[in-house]
């Protein structure tokens, strides 16, 4: 998976600095990653990686690390 592309998705959707996008960053742990931004993040990821995520995976995408694991399923 292209890690740089993934980080850019977070930067663009959450409007945060790339340095903040670490595996430990969790959903709702910063004001910028709320439910509205989460849906924007999903849209960015789907467009950039050309995938369509399952609703369960969107709900389950609770951190950057989790996002990597979930995306990897679709890109295998």
């Amino acid at each position, binding site marked *: 998976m292209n890690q740089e592309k993934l980080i850019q998705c977070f930067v663009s959707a959450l409007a945060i600095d790339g340095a903040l996008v670490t595996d430990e960053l969790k959903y709702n742990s910063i004001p910028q990653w709320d439910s509205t931004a989460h849906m924007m993040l999903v849209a960015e990821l789907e*467009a950039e990686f050309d995938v369509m995520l399952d609703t369960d995976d969107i709900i389950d995408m609770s951190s950057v690390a989790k996002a990597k694991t979930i995306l990897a399923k679709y890109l295998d």
Partner: protein
Amino acid sequence: MNQMLVDKHVLITGASRGIGRAIAATFAAQGATVYLNGRDESSLKALENELKQLYGDRVHSLAFDVSDAKQVKQGFQALFKLTKTLDVLVNNAGILEHSLVGMVSAEQIQQTFASNSFSVIYTSQYASRLMARNGGGSIINMASIIGCVGSSGDSVYGGSKAAVIGITKSLAKELAATQIRVNAIAPGFIDTQMNESLSVDKQNQTLQSIAMGRKGTPQDVANTALFLASDLAQYVTGQTIGVDGGMLI
């Protein structure tokens, strides 16, 4: 008149008969690329072949049960392989069983709400993301006059269709920022197989309540869906349009 849906990609649930079939044929005639959904693969294929003879290869079928969240997920993954674009979703699939409230089984309640109400949310979850990618779209939900005013013997069906109206209003507010319009159609007494289960007495009684003095046709509903799908309705969202020949006036 120019075709109103050229280059639009449209998914219609419950497309194999009645109102869904009329919408599919109307939209294909108006230039749309049409994805037909239903549970019965053979009747979907028959309609697909019929429409392909008239309009070419712009017609596809996707058999899945919209009342089952897992099947909806698989159905949209299949759709995603065919197109990355969706402009219009018509949530038309639904079931109707008349029963007095004391004679409705728990299973019937679950199945009616799953088919008529939950399905609208399942499909909208995926469709709205496909639409947002391309700058917007139109979701059209099939409600019913019974969801607006009620009908004896239809508490479950009426409740499930009232839920569709509530879902429509909330989704319209939630999705407006992404330029996705969400509206409902509330058909009155339409001449479809679904209404054949009504007794002759009930049918005559219903006819007398229609100001225009006739049953509606599936085409009457399809024409309203065409308006809501088209750019003519680009500033219309959160509305429930009655197609009932004046039953409510």
